[in-house]
């Protein structure tokens, strides 16, 4: 059921056009941090995919790290989620 990109390009009437893919790639590029791809014009799809993979991996690592820190904080703080919530929402 999944139509691979290569197969779509080779078939005569491809449901998935190159333009569609380029649109999606540039949309993906827009959520990535600027540091990865420095050029203003559109980077190649391969570069965007590479940056995306790296970015997702680094985000996963950050979630792990922040979970560790939160777990230590939960252990230490005798009191208030109330104070934290207040400081965040007000």
């Amino acid at each position, binding site marked *: 059921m999944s*139509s691979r990109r290569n197969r779509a390009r080779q078939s005569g009437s491809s449901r998935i056009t190159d333009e569609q*893919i380029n649109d999606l790639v540039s949309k*993906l590029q827009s959520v990535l941090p600027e540091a990865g791809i420095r050029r203003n014009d559109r980077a190649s799809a391969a570069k965007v995919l590479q940056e995306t993979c790296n970015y*997702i991996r680094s985000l996963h690592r950050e979630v792990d790290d922040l*979970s560790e820190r939160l777990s230590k904080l939960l252990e230490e703080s005798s009191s208030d*989620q109330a104070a934290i919530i207040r400081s965040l929402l007000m």
Partner: protein
Amino acid sequence: MYRRSFKDTRSSLGSPNPNFSKPMVALRFLRALSLVRRSGLGACSPSYRARGIRRAAYACMAASAGPRRAWSRALLRKIRRRPGRGLRRPRAVIWRHRPVGGGDRLEVALRRLVPGGGCMEYCRLLEEAADYVKCLAMQVRLMQTIVDSASHV
């Protein structure tokens, strides 16, 4: 612990997702954190608690994204399955669409990183990846904010 947030998601199935705003995600996550604390995990080892917090983070993120996204559905399925309740369904769907070796390595890598990415069309994969990255980045920023403000209290 996560059932409540899953039910909230189900009730908003037809509508555009009203739950996905930073304050809502923050509230959800803070509630999950206080549940973690109260549930007596405080007595366990820090690494066990950290795993519980990480699971809560992904669960809140997926629940807030709503059921319209394939990645959020896949993530919630994975999280709810993990405690080992019930039978583990065979992952036939994912294995069937495993790309043959020699395929695009980047695409394979991305499919592994995005939840539920194993059996999507390529276009859908790009779309889901963009949304996943956006939500993940927001979750990280949220957790960083909580850690920062908790450190200063």
